């Protein structure tokens, strides 16, 4: 009897173990199937593209069979973002479907140069307040109607008043059309304006309505053929596109947000290209696939409140400031104590490069923001500022205040976690300052980020990011741009000068001085509100034979930056 019980117990243990691994809760039958599916990924098979044929109006989706027949013109992409709204005037901006479905007046090439798109030429008046764009006459929306100057005027005017638009068009005074030219008058010079224009998709006035976002029509290289909520969207080449006809005629974007789902999808040949993480990239190889490594300005850093605790509350009533991180010497000591090359190797398996600012390598970056690791200097900074380890626990104190702060990251973001933990190890070992790396849900982050350090990531092809990050006008707003409450009259001066400069080129020295002017600035040599750590490479499993063209240096976010040049992709024969 006893033996039988033991066998039963062992069998039960095994069953339990297995069922536990298969994502069951204590009481199996009542486990919610939805929840287990979304959370585990393992138990949720990738939505097969063919499953959509029922909803696709008879259109068959891409075949995931991986046949490499001659002249393949389709691509299946494991993607992390399926928009529910494709209206260019109320959503989007840079880094979205904009360059795929819509035309913009001007575009950016792979070297971040402004090049013609819908406008074949443009002029800027001497006072830089008037932009005149001459439109090409052969552009048509995918419904066959020509793209007229009035559509451009309509799009700009709509976007200026739309809620939720991501591009700030407050500088615009008026937009008017005359034949094939569009004239935009500005209230004040704005050096980044042409970059803003590059992010504004032109919508057809004759079709625009409240549900345009679900039935988008544009004049870009692709048109939206199908869209299934949270599952997939399919783009097909727009035959009426005025530019070079794309070789990829059909692109299926399938939602897969988990790293493991992406890996399995690639291993089973269901996708031609998909995102992956530094850990999985280093520990896996997939037959028939190569690892695409794209350099980025997608920087990760620890943002530190620069004002002491008790400095009031933010707009949403969250207490601002931190007594430890408000000491600039402590912030700089942390910045100098970190060996970033080592951090790239340790935390991200080498799939990263050291980061020194929010825009390393961009034309408006100041190379003087680069700092060398200097532990001795870091220790001296702390010693001089009165931070010493008096109780021998390996962590410095000053007037009873311990040099120990939490560093929060979005729970589940393994890259941020690893990077922060790697930095924390070095900082503790080298200078006796403790960073306690802690994961937090996004909803909780908002409440504490104005008073505690946290890991954030930036990186864009527009220098206005620096303005939003560091200008004092944004202090106290509960947005991602300004949790550190940094503001300095000197830096404000440079930022204002940069934004009000007459051209991108003229603004560059000001953007650079804002980072470091020889005595102060926003970089780690200066006031150091951010401890920049690494620029994380964007990593993808790519099927052999797929050529993804020449990509612009990737901005923050690995999904849209990959496909921005989809029209240049092709299958090598």
């Amino acid at each position: 009897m006893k033996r039988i019980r033991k066998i039963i117990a062992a069998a039960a243990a095994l069953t339990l173990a297995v069922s536990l691994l298969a994502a069951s809760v204590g009481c199996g039958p009542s486990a919610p199937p939805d929840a287990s599916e979304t959370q585990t990924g393992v138990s949720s098979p990738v939505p097969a593209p063919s499953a959509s044929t029922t909803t696709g109006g008879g259109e068959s989706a891409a075949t995931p069979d991986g046949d490499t027949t001659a002249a393949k013109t389709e691509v299946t992409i494991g993607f992390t973002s399926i928009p529910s709204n494709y209206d260019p005037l109320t959503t989007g901006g840079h880094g979205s479907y904009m360059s795929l479905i819509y035309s913009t007046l001007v575009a950016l090439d792979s070297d971040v140069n402004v090049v013609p798109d819908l406008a074949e030429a443009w002029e800027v008046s001497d006072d830089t307040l008037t932009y005149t764009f001459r439109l090409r006459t052969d552009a048509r929306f995918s419904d066959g109607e020509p793209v007229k100057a009035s559509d451009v005027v309509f799009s700009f005017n709509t976007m200026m008043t739309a809620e939720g638009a991501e591009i700030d068009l407050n500088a615009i005074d008026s937009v008017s059309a005359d034949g094939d030219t569009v004239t935009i008058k500005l209230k004040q010079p704005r050096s980044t304006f042409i970059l803003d224009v590059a992010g504004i998709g032109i919508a057809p006035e004759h079709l625009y309505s409240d549900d345009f976002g679900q039935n988008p029509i544009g004049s870009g290289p692709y048109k939206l053929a199908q869209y299934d909520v949270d599952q997939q969207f399919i783009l097909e080449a727009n035959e009426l596109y005025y530019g070079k006809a794309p070789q990829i005629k059909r692109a299926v974007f399938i939602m897969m947000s988990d790293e493991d789902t992406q890996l399995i999808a690639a291993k089973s040949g269901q996708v031609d290209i998909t995102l992956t993480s530094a850990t999985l990239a280093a520990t896996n190889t997939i037959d028939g696939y190569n690892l695409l490594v794209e350099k980025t300005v997608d920087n990760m850093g620890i943002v530190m409140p620069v004002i002491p605790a008790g400095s009031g509350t933010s707009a949403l009533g969250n207490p601002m400031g931190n007594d430890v991180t408000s000491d600039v010497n402590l912030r700089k000591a942390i910045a100098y104590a970190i060996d970033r090359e080592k951090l790239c190797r340790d935390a991200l398996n080498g799939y990263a490069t050291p980061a020194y600012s929010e825009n390393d390598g961009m034309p408006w970056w100041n190379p003087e923001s680069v700092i060398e690791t200097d532990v001795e200097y870091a220790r001296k900074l702390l010693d001089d500022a009165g931070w010493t380890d008096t109780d021998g626990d390996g962590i410095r104190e000053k007037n009873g205040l311990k040099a120990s702060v939490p560093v929060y990251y979005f729970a589940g973001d393994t890259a941020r976690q690893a990077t922060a933990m790697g930095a924390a190890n070095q900082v503790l070992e080298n200078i006796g300052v403790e960073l306690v790396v802690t994961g937090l849900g996004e909803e909780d982050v908002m409440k504490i980020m104005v008073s505690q350090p946290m890991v954030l990531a930036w990186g864009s092809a527009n220098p206005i990011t620096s303005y939003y990050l560091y200008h004092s006008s944004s202090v106290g707003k509960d947005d991602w741009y300004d949790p550190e409450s940094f503001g300095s009259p000197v830096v404000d001066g440079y930022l204002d000068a940069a934004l009000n400069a007459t051209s991108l080129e003229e603004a560059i020295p000001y953007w650079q001085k804002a980072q470091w002017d020889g005595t102060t600035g926003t970089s780690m040599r200066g006031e150091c509100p951010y401890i920049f750590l690494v620029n994380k490479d964007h990593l993808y499993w790519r099927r052999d034979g797929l050529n993804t063209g020449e990509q612009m240096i990737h901005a923050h976010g690995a999904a849209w930056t990959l496909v921005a040049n989809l029209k240049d992709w092709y299958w090598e024969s």
Partner: protein
Amino acid sequence: MNRRLSAAITAGVILAVILAIYIGGTFLPESALRADFSQKGLPPSASHIFGTDFLGRDMFTRTVKGLSISLVIGAAASVISAFIALAVGVTAAMGRGWVDHAVNWFIDVFMSVPHTVLIILISVALARGVKGMLVGVAVTHWVGLARIIRGEVMQIRGRQYIAASRRFGKSPLWIARKHILPHMVPQFFVGLILLFPHAIMHESGLTFLGFGLPPEQPAIGIILSESMKYISGGAVWLAFFPGLSLVVLVLLIDKLGNTIRYLLEPREAQL
């Protein structure tokens, strides 16, 4: 060695293991869970018997820490739950007929709702976290024990000494306190201990699904859901050993409950 002694030794050993996990996990220094990138992603070996994760943290240490959190939450939830059961059970049995009917009806309704769903709802409504988890498990798990206690009380109620007390004019409350509750002690303790593994499984399961403890807690459910990212890459040890440890702990507590029942009521219980 007689069976009673061996049962006592079994109970002692299990208690010692549980205590060791609790103490080991609770008093673990912060530094033991720091990343060590020179040791990342190692399969189980002599120096890391459960292997290491992709931050180089020892999985055995993480597992012990996670289990100790589960123990605390499980203990708190089952104690609360058991007290609810005691109160409800005794009230039903000692009250008038309609009270008993009402309570029974309520228990039936409660049992008809799948309690995992109920826990998720309660936990989410209370903003998840330790509080949501505790309340969720505590208020859904008293029903079974309440039934048992009600049955026991009904039995005792019919005894002669109760009738005698009543004739002496003692109040129902007095009778309940002096004559009935002392008899409930074995059922109460055994029921409490048997609730314990259930509570732990719910805590881990719901946390795994993302409805339980917040992700910054080094809980076992978090460890398991994290590990799912790497299983497809072949790192099965990240899930297998923590999962197995959880199952073993649950079975140990179950065994403890049955052993204690045997010690308390040797005639009714079997080992």
